[in-house]
């Protein structure tokens, strides 16, 4: 056996950086897009905002990225939250309901995000206080949350009520200085989450709890409280995703809004280098993960292939990204390429 470390040492710094692989995947997807659709990179200004496929990828990735940020924190505690889609549905139903009831729209926004926080408290309570396994604890809200959304709609007789709100629609589909507002909303949320996590000790506590809850507890970290807070943050982010998605179509559709968003969010976290075994949170990388997924979705939509192919392509690309990211796979490959030379 020879030492491959020395030979590849020059690349080492580059290859060691976690960020490189998801970014590489993103770049590859975009290059392929450019080949299948010649005017893919065009960016114009339409109706006072930037317009084009590239903008679309950012634009459409926002809800997934929001949920994924919250998910990253929950996963950091070694948990998982399956109920994020349902939370978004509840928050959307509340928006339609309270707007129909005539509340000021700023207050409605507060209710919607607040509902997310309350859902997060419910999940957090089940996991942290009752000690129920996260996947099952959040399954409860996942199952019943969309029912709650439908029920809220039925309160005032609507099945899938639509509404008009300059404020909310502005947040979702509007633009400020050519930039889609939702990107700005997302940027603000990202910065807030980042500050809360990294400028305070919360991030360390979350990671410690996820790494070894018993040890953290003995070290004086209130592990239960930390887990609880993680689910609340996740709920708030899901509430925001509900706002963006519901305002996008200005319709509350609890059955199908944000369907399977939990899977995409978890995928984003993992593509961003997070481990479901807990212990580490990478916020920036998670956003890149969400972009990879959305770039993929957008490419499938513009590819012109029949929809039967969507899932297969998605699966293959996801596999490709994961293999690219797997250190073990790369090491194996390198020994094959250089090791035997």
């Amino acid at each position, binding site marked *: 056996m020879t030492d491959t470390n020395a030979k590849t040492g020059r690349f080492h710094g580059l290859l060691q950086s976690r960020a490189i692989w998801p970014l590489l995947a993103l770049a590859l997807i975009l290059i392929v897009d450019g080949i299948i659709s010649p005017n893919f990179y065009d960016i114009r200004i339409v109706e006072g905002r930037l317009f084009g496929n590239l903008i679309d990828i950012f634009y459409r990735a926002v809800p997934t990225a929001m949920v994924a940020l919250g998910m990253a924190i929950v996963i950091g505690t070694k948990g998982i939250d399956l109920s994020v889609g349902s939370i978004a549905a509840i928050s959307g139903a509340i928006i339609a309901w309270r707007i129909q009831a005539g509340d000021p729209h700023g207050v409605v926004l507060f209710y919607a995000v607040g509902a997310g926080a309350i859902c997060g408290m419910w999940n957090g309570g089940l996991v942290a206080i009752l000690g129920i396994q996260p996947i099952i604890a959040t399954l409860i809200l996942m199952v019943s949350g969309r029912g709650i959304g439908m029920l809220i709609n039925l309160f005032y007789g609507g099945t899938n009520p639509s509404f008009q709100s300059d404020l909310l629609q502005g947040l979702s589909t509007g633009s400020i200085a050519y930039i889609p507002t939702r990107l700005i909303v997302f940027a603000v949320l990202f910065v807030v989450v980042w500050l809360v996590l990294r400028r305070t000790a919360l991030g360390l506590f979350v990671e410690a709890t996820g790494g070894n809850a018993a040890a953290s507890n003995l070290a004086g970290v209130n592990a239960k409280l930390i887990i609880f807070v993680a689910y609340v943050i996740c709920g708030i982010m899901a509430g925001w995703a509900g706002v963006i998605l519901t305002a996008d179509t200005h319709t509350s559709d609890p059955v199908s809004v944000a369907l399977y968003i939990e899977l995409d969010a978890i995928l984003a976290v993992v593509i961003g280098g997070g481990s479901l075994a807990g212990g580490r949170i990478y916020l920036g990388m998670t956003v890149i993960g969400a972009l990879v997924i959305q770039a993929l979705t957008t490419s499938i939509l513009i590819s012109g292939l029949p929809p039967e192919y969507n899932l297969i392509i998605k699966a293959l690309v*996801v596999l490709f990204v994961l293999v690219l990211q797997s250190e073990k796979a790369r090491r194996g490959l390198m020994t094959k390429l250089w090791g035997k030379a």
Partner: protein
Amino acid sequence: MSALLNKKYLPFYATVFVFIAIFLIGGAMYKNFLTTRVLGNILADNSFIIIAAIGATFVILSGGIDLSIGSMIGFVGVSMAVLDSMGWNPLATAVLMLAFGFAFGAFQGWVIDGLDIQPFIITLAGLFLLRGACFMVTINSVPINHEWADLYTDIKIRLPGKGLLRSSAIVMLVSLAIGIFVAHFTRFGTNVYALGGDKESARLMGVNVRRTTVMVYAVAGLYSALAGVVYALYTKSGYPLAGSTLELSAIASVVLGGTLLTGGVGMVAGTLFGGMILGLISTLIIFNGSLNSAWILISSGILLFAFIVLHRFLVGSFDHNRQ
């Protein structure tokens, strides 16, 4: 006797207790509920979920997870139906499908261990891949019309009362017995527990982690494929959307049955009752029948919550000699 009172069986007893309790409560609330007919229905209607869940129990015991279950059921179903329409014998297709399930599972296991990628994600890719493959096979629902399929569905054992033990329930009970044997009385089974208990220790204690991981997912794939065969024969058709989100029901069955998602702790027999509890919840709601769609969803959640809390309470209150 002391072995029976062993602490580790507590979650299992609690699950059985909860199951019996709901069955009795349902009987008190609705007429015709507490009958062998309903019991027979629950066994048959949940058979494929429970079969898949037995495989999932192995995976979860080993500390992993398998999300490809539902798609595997769908894929096996459409493949069987399409091959049937091409004149294949159902028995031959069933064997082929079981082999495929085993191989596909083994492949997932190999990627998980060999490339060190998290099982949640690999099997999620498996979920997409197999569901996508369903659409490649056909986008229509295709009937299975072979006489052997009729023969299979005609196998029924009468229970006292009006109940029937249908063929799918029989297959399920047999595969459960095999699952229990493999998990608790073979070296492979013990290795699975060891792997889920502490992977690094298991490795140092001489467990072949690679082989065990591959085998665990292969077994899970085999069980999912069997669930797919049972599902296909149960509905005598294949449908590309069949089995969507069944993996969640399967995982829920496993966990309700007392198995810890973190691995290493649990019993295969618990999965049977976990699955039947889910079936009971649905049946109760149908017997009620007066709820609208919104309340149907909400009450499934509430019932699920109630059972989990009851279960925890039972386990907790019998287990007072914990610190």
